[in-house]
C-alpha cells in the first residue's frame, strides 16, 4: 500500500516534467525578463524595486502601447537573491530571446559577465555588479550606469570634505567604514586605503559578516570606542535597518552617518525618532510628485495592475526600480532608432545602450524633469559616472540636502582601467572587443 502510494506520487511528479516546456514567445513584442526577489532575506529591499520596475513597464504598455508601437512582454523570475536560482532563471528566459537581463544581484551578475558576449544578451547591472564593467572596451556587453561603487565612495568623501571645509581639512580625521563583508562591501577597501593615505585621514573598518547582519553589537561597540568623525555604510537587506538602530542606540550623531544609495524609508523608520538626520546618496527623486510617477499611479496602480501598496509608490527604492525600467525602455527605444527595426534583439539593444543619451529635453518628455539628471553612455564608457546628491531622513521622508556632487573621476578612472585590465588578464584568454561602435551622437 505504502509502496503504491509513494510510487504514484513519484509518477505524478515526473509526469509534470512533460509539461515543463517554456511557452513560445509572441513575435511582435520585445521580451524583457525581470529578475526579482520578493522572497528571501533581501525581500525587504527587493519588493520595492520589483514593483517599481514592473509598474513602469506596464505603464508604458498601458499608456503608449509599448515602445515605438511594440508591446513589452514583461516576465518576472524569482531569484530570492540566490545565485544558483538566478542562473536557473537566466537559462529559463534565454530561449525566449530576451533583449537584456537585469540580474539585481552582484552574485548573479558575475557569472553572467563572460556569458553575455556568447549569448548576445546585454546585461544592465544598475549601479551594482562589477565596477570595472564600466569600461566598455573590455566589457562591450555589460552596462552599470549611472555610478560605480567607487564613484559613490568618492562622492561621500567629497560630501564629508564639504562639511569640513575642503579635502585638505580631512587630515587627522577619523572616518569609519561599516560594510557587508562580501565582495560588494570589500570593493571600496583599496580605494579607501588610497584616499586615506592621500588625504591623511584615518580609516576605521567595521566589517559585518553576511551571517551576522542582524547582530552588529560588536561593531558598534568598536564605534563607541573609536568615535570616528564620520561613518560610511555599504549595506544591503537586513544589515541596513540593524546598523541604523545600533547607531541610534550608540548615540552616534546621525547626521555624520552616510550610506551608499541602498537604504529605503523603512530601514530608517524602523529606528524611530533617533534616526532623524541619517544621510544617504541618491540620484533620483524619492517622492511621488513627478509626472512619471503620477502616470504610473493612474494607469497601473489605480487600475489594480500593480502588486505594490499604494503608499509605497514613489518611495526611494520603488523609484529606483522605475529609473532602472526607464533605462531599459530608453535603450530599446534608442535601439529602434539606430536599427530602424521595430522588434529589436539583444544585439540591437546593446547598441541602443551604447548610444543612450537621455538629455534634459528627453527627461522632460519622459515626465522625469527634476526626477534625475541627464545621462549619456558611449562605447568606452558604460557607466556615465553621474553626479549624485545627499538626502537626509527627517523622520518621515528623505529630503535632499546637497547639490549634485561629481565623483572624483581623476582618482576613480585609473582604478577602473587597471581593474578591467586585470580582469581581462586573469580571465585570459578574454575575448577582445569585436563589436563595432556606432558613435551616433
Amino acid at each position, binding site marked *: 500500500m*505504502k*509502496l503504491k*502510494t*509513494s*510510487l504514484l*506520487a513519484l509518477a505524478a*511528479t*515526473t509526469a*509534470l*516534467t512533460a*509539461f*515543463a*516546456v*517554456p*511557452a513560445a514567445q509572441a513575435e511582435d513584442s520585445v521580451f524583457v525578463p525581470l529578475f*526579482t526577489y*520578493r*522572497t528571501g532575506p533581501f525581500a525587504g529591499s527587493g519588493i520595492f524595486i520589483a514593483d517599481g520596475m514592473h509598474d513602469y513597464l506596464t505603464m508604458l504598455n498601458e499608456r503608449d502601447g509599448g515602445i515605438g508601437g511594440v508591446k513589452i512582454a514583461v*516576465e*518576472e*523570475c*524569482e531569484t*530570492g537573491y540566490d*545565485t*544558483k536560482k538566478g*542562473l*536557473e532563471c537566466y*537559462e*529559463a528566459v534565454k*530561449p525566449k530571446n530576451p533583449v537584456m537581463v537585469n540580474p539585481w544581484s*552582484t*552574485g548573479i551578475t*558575475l*557569472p553572467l*559577465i*563572460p*556569458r553575455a*558576449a*556568447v*549569448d548576445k544578451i546585454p546585461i544592465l547591472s544598475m549601479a551594482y555588479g*562589477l*565596477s*570595472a564593467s564600466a569600461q566598455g572596451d573590455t566589457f562591450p556587453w555589460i552596462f552599470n550606469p549611472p555610478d560605480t561603487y567607487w564613484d559613490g565612495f568618492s562622492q561621500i568623501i567629497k560630501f564629508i570634505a564639504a562639511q569640513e571645509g575642503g579635502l585638505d581639512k580631512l587630515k587627522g580625521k577619523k572616518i569609519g567604514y561599516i560594510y557587508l*563583508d*562580501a*565582495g*560588494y562591501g*570589500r*570593493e571600496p577597501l*583599496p580605494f579607501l586605503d588610497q584616499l586615506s593615505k592621500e588625504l591623511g585621514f584615518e580609516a576605521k573598518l567595521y566589517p559585518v*559578516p*553576511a*551571517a551576522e547582519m542582524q547582530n552588529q553589537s560588536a561593531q558598534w561597540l568598536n564605534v563607541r570606542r573609536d568615535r570616528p568623525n564620520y561613518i560610511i555604510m555599504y549595506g544591503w537587506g537586513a544589515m541596513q535597518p540593524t546598523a541604523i538602530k545600533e547607531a541610534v542606540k550608540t548615540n552616534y550623531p546621525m547626521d555624520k552617518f552616510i550610506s551608499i544609495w541602498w537604504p529605503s524609508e523603512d530601514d530608517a523608520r524602523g529606528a524611530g525618532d533617533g534616526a532623524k538626520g541619517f544621510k544617504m546618496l541618491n540620484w533620483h527623486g524619492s517622492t511621488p510628485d513627478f509626472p512619471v510617477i503620477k502616470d504610473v499611479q493612474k494607469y497601473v496602480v489605480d487600475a489594480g495592475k500593480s502588486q505594490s501598496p499604494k503608499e509605497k509608490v514613489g518611495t526611494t527604492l520603488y523609484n529606483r526600480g522605475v529609473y532602472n525600467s526607464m533605462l531599459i525602455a530608453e535603450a530599446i527605444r534608442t535601439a529602434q532608432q539606430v536599427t530602424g527595426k521595430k522588434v529589436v534583439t539583444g544585439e540591437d539593444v546593446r547598441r541602443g545602450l551604447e548610444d543612450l543619451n537621455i538629455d534634459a529635453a528627453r527627461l522632460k518628455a519622459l515626465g522625469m524633469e527634476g526626477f534625475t539628471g541627464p545621462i549619456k553612455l558611449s562605447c568606452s564608457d558604460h557607466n556615465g559616472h553621474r553626479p549624485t546628491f545627499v538626502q537626509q531622513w527627517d523622520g518621515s521622508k528623505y529630503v535632499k540636502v546637497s547639490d549634485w556632487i561629481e565623483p572624483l573621476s581623476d582618482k576613480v578612472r585609473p582604478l577602473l582601467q587597471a*581593474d578591467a585590465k*586585470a*580582469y581581462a588578464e*586573469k*580571465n*585570459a*584568454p578574454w575575448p577582445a572587443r569585436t563589436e563595432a561602435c556606432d558613435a551616433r551622437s
Partner: protein
Amino acid sequence: MLYREAGQYKTSYAADVGVFPLREDRIGLAVVLLIAFVVLPLTANEFMLQAVLIPFLVFSLAAIGLNILTGYTGLVSLGTGAFMGVGAYACYKLSTAFPAINILVWIVLSGFVSCAVGVLFGLPSLRIKGFYLAVATLAAQFFLQWCFVRLPWLYNYNPSGAIEVPSRTLFGIHVTGASATPTTRYYIALIIVIIITWIVSNLVHGRVGRSFMAVRDMDIAAQLIGIRLLRTKLLAFAVSSFITGVAGAMMVFLWLGAAEADAFNINQSFVILFMVIIGGLGSLIGSFLGAALIYIMPIIVRAAPESFGLTIGAATVEHLTYLITGALIIFFLIVEPLGLARLWQIGKQKLRVWPFPY
C-alpha cells in the same frame, strides 16, 4: 516475472559477490547509461542541460561524498558546503597559477587539497561523536567560509571578491568558461561522476567499506575485532572530502562559472545533508535519488503552473514551490523513513516475486 532470478546460475565466487548479481540490474544500468550518454544530450535543450542535469550531477557527487562519511561511517558532518568550497578555491588557485596544465587534471587534483583539509578537521572525530561531531564540523564550515572571504590570496585579490572561471580547452574544445557548450560540460561532469561512483562502489563493497560500516554500527565492537578507529575514521573523512572537493570544483568550473564565498554557505551543507537523508543513508543510488528529489523537484513544481497555462506571480510560485516541496519531502519520509533507496529496494523485491507474492 520481469525481474526473475530463476535460471541465473553463478559459476564462480566472483560472479556471486558481484555488485549487480542479477542480469536485470545489469541491463537496467546499461539502459540508464545509454540514456545518460546518448538520449539526454541528443534530446535535452540547453535549459535542461545547464540548469537541471549538470547541477544534478554535481549535487549527486557531493551527496555521494557526504554519504561515505554520514551514511557509511556514521559521522555527521555539517561542513560539506565548505569542503566543496575548498575544492573550488583550490581548483581556481591551481588553474590560474599553472594554466598550461589541463583543467580536468586540476578539477580532480583539487580534491586532494580538500582531502587534506578534511582530514585535519576529521581529527577530533576519534574523541567526539554524534551531535558533538556535527558541531565540530560546523566550526569547519564557519572557519573555511571566513577564509574564503578574508584571505584575498585565495581569490587572486579580485576586487569583486569572487572566483571567476577562465576559459580552458581540451583537444581544442572549450571545456570551461562561457564558450564551452553545455553538452561538453555535461559529458565531462557525467564521466567524472561515473568514474568516481564506480571507484566508490568498489570501495564500499570491499574491506574498507566494511570497516566503515563496522565503525558506524558499533565502534567499540569494531575496535575489538581489530579495526583501527582513528585510521578508519580519518580515511572516511579523506575519501568524503576528496569527493565533495571534486564536486565543488565541478560546481564552479562546469556549472556556475563564477562564485562568491556565499555559494558555499551553511545552507549548501544542509541541502546536501538532506539529499543524503532523504535519498537513503549508506546507499549510492540513494545519493542520486536524493539529489533528484531535492534539486530537480522544485524546478518541476516551479515550471508546472506555466505549462498548464496558468499565470501566477513569480513570488507566489516561489512560495508554492516551498510549500509543495516541503510537503512532498515529509510525505516521502513518512511512507519510507529509510529514504528513497529503501523504497527502490522494496520495489525490486516486489518485482522479483510478482505476480505470486508470498
